[in-house]
């Protein structure tokens, strides 16, 4: 039996370049940012981030809309093309206040996404909570993939 000095392979060793590494991390984070964010920074218009998920029965569209009033959100569906649009107002403008940092983006937004198959438009449900819009779109019965039993003779 021997005694070997145990060195945890996962433990990060401190190096004098740590601050540089964290800077590199920040730069990477900047470039890893999603496309919506990048286009927002380039073009000035607000492009809210969205997710589209599907399971066997429905699609779920999730859109980040912080600070948007429920009545300012418009949803429309035409030929499987779902459009979320509206405007975000800056309700905080005050005459006596001096803004010393303005990072948030306001104004009109519009996002369009095409759904791969038809949905049952009468059963679409939208919910807005904590600045996140969730739209549930059940797939149309006739468009759902069906399983066909194969009888092997």
């Amino acid at each position, binding site marked *: 039996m021997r005694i070997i000095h145990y060195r945890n392979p996962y433990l990060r060793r401190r190096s004098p370049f740590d601050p540089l590494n964290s800077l590199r991390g920040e730069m990477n984070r900047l470039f890893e940012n999603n496309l919506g964010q990048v286009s927002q920074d380039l073009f000035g218009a607000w492009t809210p981030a969205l*997710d589209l998920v599907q*399971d066997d029965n429905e699609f779920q569209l999730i859109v*980040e809309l912080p600070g948007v009033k429920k009545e300012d959100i418009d949803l429309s569906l035409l030929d499987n093309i779902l459009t979320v649009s509206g405007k975000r107002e800056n309700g905080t403008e005050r005459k006596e206040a001096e803004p010393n940092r303005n990072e948030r983006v306001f104004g009109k937004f519009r996002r369009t996404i095409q759904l791969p198959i038809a949905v049952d438009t009468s059963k679409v449900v939208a919910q807005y909570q904590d*600045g996140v819009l969730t739209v549930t779109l059940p797939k149309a019965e006739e468009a759902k993939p069906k399983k066909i039993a194969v009888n092997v003779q």
Partner: protein
Amino acid sequence: MSQTSATNNDTASTERPTYLTPRADILGGSDWTEVHLDLPGVATDGVEITVENQLLTLIGRRKVFDVSGEYLHQEIPRHDYRRVFEMSPKIDTNRIQAELREGVLLLRLPIAESVKLRRITVD
């Protein structure tokens, strides 16, 4: 055996969580400062605000998405939010107010009475 468990613990403690920096607007008035932060997906119980010396640390934890299925398109990051602000010593840290509405956190930082401008009249 004991060594493997120690290794696991060590990795857990050295792992650094990744945070997103939420966008912020800061407005300053003569007797208050307001900070507005976009925190979509965070509910009231997910907000953690700590004040230590002149540092105000904000952490916003997202609600867990109860989404099952296949992602056809994904842009929303899953990271929690964190941002640290250095406050002016003029801020009365005991009277800071926070309010979360529609995914936007509003912090009201009042300026202490003791540092406000007072005019003294000469009798």
